[in-house]
Structures are given as C-alpha cells and as structure tokens.
C-alpha cells in the first residue's frame, strides 16, 4: 500500500521535503509510516515524543490504522498566532 506523508516546519527541513510517498506493508499504522521515515531520516527521531499526527487532515494517533491512499501528517509543536 502507498501513503503520502506530509511534513511541516523544522520536520520538513530535517527531511528535506514536505511531501513524500511511502510504500508500507499491510496492515499498516501511522507508526509504520513514522518508522519508515526515521529509517531514512534518522535526524527526525527527536520529534517522536513531541509531535502530533494526522490522517487525512484529522488529528489521529500513532496506533491508528492507515489505508492505501491515506495522507499522513507529522506535525511539530505548533507556533501560530
């Protein structure tokens, strides 16, 4: 299955891209996508404990199942306003 991974702010800078496509083995979770990301970009690992995650533009959890075509977003601590 194939998912789109969206990265923002410093997390995007660390990975060098704001949008990546990942191939994941089924069944997959948000955590599967994250592990795949950390394998390729170890420097993003520091965000694991402080980031939020979203699936298809809704807040979600690392344990949530993902399906083919889903958009998974990893979000650093926010600083809007």
């Amino acid at each position, binding site marked *: 299955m194939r998912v789109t991974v969206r990265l923002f*702010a410093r997390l995007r800078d660390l990975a060098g891209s704001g949008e990546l496509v990942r191939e994941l083995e089924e069944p997959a979770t948000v955590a599967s996508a994250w592990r795949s990301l950390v394998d390729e970009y170890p420097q993003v690992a520091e965000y694991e404990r402080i980031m939020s995650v979203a699936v298809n533009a809704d807040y979600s959890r690392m344990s949530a199942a993902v399906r083919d075509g889903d958009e998974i977003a990893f979000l*650093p601590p926010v600083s809007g306003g």
Partner: protein
Amino acid sequence: MTAPLPGRRYTEHMAVPAVAVTTAPLSLEAVIDVVSAGGSASGAVASFSGLVRDHNQGRTVTFLEYEAYVPLAVKGMERIVSEAGETWPGVRLALHHRIGRLDPGEASIVIAAAGAHRADTFSACRYAIERVKQIVPIWKREHFEGGDVWLEGATADPEDEAARAQALRVSCA
C-alpha cells in the same frame, strides 16, 4: 478555503468567512463585520490583532514566515468557534490567520467576538488566541539578523482537557 486572487484583499471577492487561513493581508474590520452581521442585538465587540514584532528574545527580527497545514488549521479554527459557542452561548466569533512572509508591524491573526455583554466577548476573544496557539497546525520561522529559527510551542492535541482548562483560565471565564 478559496485562495485569494493575487494582489487583491480576500474581502473584495468573496463572502467573508468566520475562519480563514490566507496569504492575503488581514483586515480586523472584516472579522468584526462577520460577527456584527445580523442586526443590533450585540452590545459589545471585543477584538484582537496579533502583530509581528521587530524584536524577540533580544534578536532583531527581519521578517516571519508562517506555514500551515491548511485543511487541518481551518478545522482547528472551526473547532475553536464551536467551543466558544458552547462556552459562551450567543457569542459569535471569527478569526483569520495569515501565512507566508510577514514583515514587522503586519498582522498575523485577527479575531473578533460579538455578543450581548462585554465579559463574554472579552473571554471568547482571549480564549480564541490561546486555543490557536494550542491546537492549530501553524508554525512560524523567525528570520533575524544573523540567522533564522523555527519556533515551536505546544504539542497540538485538541482533546487535551488540561490545555483547554488553561485557555479558559487565562480567558477570565
């Protein structure tokens, strides 16, 4: 959200929405108009503008760069409007956040809350800016003399009741 046409204010070509994330310059008047629509039942409108400061933590700021996960940011702002409506029945809230490059003095966010009584409108307006900083996926990169840095605040979690309680507390609710 409809993208604004280049070079025009978003208020010129669309009905002004209660929440928006836009690269166009913000208008406090626009959000005040949104919450004031529908007659003269309101006795109070509290409003707020967040502006880019030219100094931060001893650094001279040259400009800020705001980035958003737009669809989730809009949902987060809609959630804030809904939370405010539940907390202060009858209060109408609107908020617009700008993204892209902002120079010192420019508004990054404008908020307005209208209602029958001033206490609720002040609280709802303050609550909105606190909640934006807690749950809306928007980030700013500060460009200063000598470098730049992504600022990071709260881990966004709309279900975090402790964060919501904190926002209510500072809102004098």
